[in-house]
């Protein structure tokens, strides 16, 4: 009897614990209207790139603008669905802002260096 009761109690406690934490967080995609543009400055010189794999929080539909300071022309890949490719020249280039339309982690990579510049944490 006591065993049964204990088992039932555990089950209830666990379910409540899980359910209690399941409610927060936003879901669905915002329309992105009125969100300020997120600007990320990227410096590429030789084999090194800054930022170097950091996480950046952005919102679903928020415009993301990359300002690239580079010593040579190149290409940046945004691994969203579908993938986006952005070209930049030597010197400072402000790339056309893009948006991500679903939540997830999106990697932004330097094509030539084969390095992750930032991971966009899209919420």
């Amino acid at each position: 009897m006591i065993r049964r009761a204990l088992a039932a109690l555990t089950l209830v406690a666990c379910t409540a614990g899980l359910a209690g934490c399941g409610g927060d967080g936003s879901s669905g995609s915002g329309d992105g209207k009125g969100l300020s543009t997120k600007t990320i400055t990227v410096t590429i010189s030789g084999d090194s790139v800054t930022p170097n794999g950091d996480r950046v929080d952005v919102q679903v539909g928020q415009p993301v603008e990359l300002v690239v300071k580079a010593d040579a022309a190149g290409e940046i890949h945004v691994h969203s669905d579908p993938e986006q490719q952005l070209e930049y020249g030597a010197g400072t280039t402000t790339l056309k802002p893009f948006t991500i339309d679903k939540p997830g982690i999106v990697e932004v990579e330097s094509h030539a260096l084969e390095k992750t510049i930032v991971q966009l944490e899209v919420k």
Partner: protein
Amino acid sequence: MEPLTSSQGSSLGGALGQVFAHGIGGSKDLPIPLGLTIAGAVAALTVSFTVLAVAWRTPRYDAERTGRPAPARLARVVDSRPWFVGWRVFGMLAFAYTAMVAIGGDDSLINPLFGIFYVLLWVGFVPASLLLGPAYKAISPVRTINAMVAKLTGGDPDVGVFRYPARLGLWPAALGLYLFVWMELVYPFATELGPVRLWCAVYVAAMLVGGALFGNTFYEHADPFEVYSTLVSRMSAWSRRDKQLVVRSPLANLDTTPVTPGLVAVTSVLFGSTAFDSFKDSTRWVKFIQGNYVQDHGLTHLVNNLGLLTFVLVVALVFTVGTMLTGVGPDLPRRELPGRFAHSIVPIVIGYVLAHYLSYLLEVGENTLIYMSDPFSNGSNWFGTADWQVSYFVSDHPTALATTKVLCVVTGHVIGVVAAHDRAIHLLPKRHQLTGQLSLLVAMICFTAGGLYLLFAA
């Protein structure tokens, strides 16, 4: 109606050759929320000790008694010749299609080969085997080819030239699985046509030679995909007893997993590699790999290889130590314990694999079905799926997705703990039955909490 736009095709094609260690599929899941992570871990912890405290004290699962015969009509269908042949034909058609895109398709990410290899084959067989039983075995093209060759030469596909050495057990499959995850997670050109084609060709060649040498026993032990699928099917409701189709509770079914050398290696590769897949995208690892030290010394490859290997070995070590730290009776050597308990980690592996790959399977899997209509990337629509749009329903509901993932992990943990408990009662002498379970319980909690932590932090 609209074919894949040329810009999309060319942009994806142009990305190949240089993209470094980036698998197929675009964005990845958001980390699960901290609250859910903790709730999941606490639930796993509580359930573990509750099972220990309140569960039965005499072994419950016994292959001879558990389960009941499947409904006669169902059994008739499943045991019929057309059913058997139908699945074999399906497998051969799928094989022929895969060979066709591997040989004649474009070296581009819209070639469906990548999705077939990394998503449908690797991940798709997990839910399929969970629901339907040993699915890969039913359609295995290498088994079919072996059977056809045997028929032509008048041989028996079950019997080869030699007996399969029992000592080898599942070790060849563990090696094969490791080579697959190495290809997927470590090899830098994993999304190029040539290497994937080569991998598949070597796989088929090895399987055909093995089948000729050792007969069908070889596939049961050495085909990585069949071993994985059949292992997962131990958690399904279906099994056979003396060739009769039996319906069993998944727990009773799991208990019938044969104790085979190399089983711990197989589960360790599966769990360790999935964990490494999570870990390698964490900011900490990315920053370390791209950091000055690794870069300056050209160690990227080495460090990635060591990372994967370490994850697999640590899982194996934790499990081995966890099962061996118990008192045993005089008739049971301690070194036999990891193998005897290995089945109990299977549900934990499945729960974690499902959690890790759920959105990947649904979204990249659907994308693969779309690409499959256009095998040569020329805008054709063979199966009428080319104009589908991938549904991002699960990604659009991150809280529901995260909750599902945690539930998968915790459910796997609970089933694993119960399976281990029953086995402990069966194996261990009375006075060690409870205390003997503690170390394995701790190991299991480590896996579950570690898995949840990676879902949270990576």
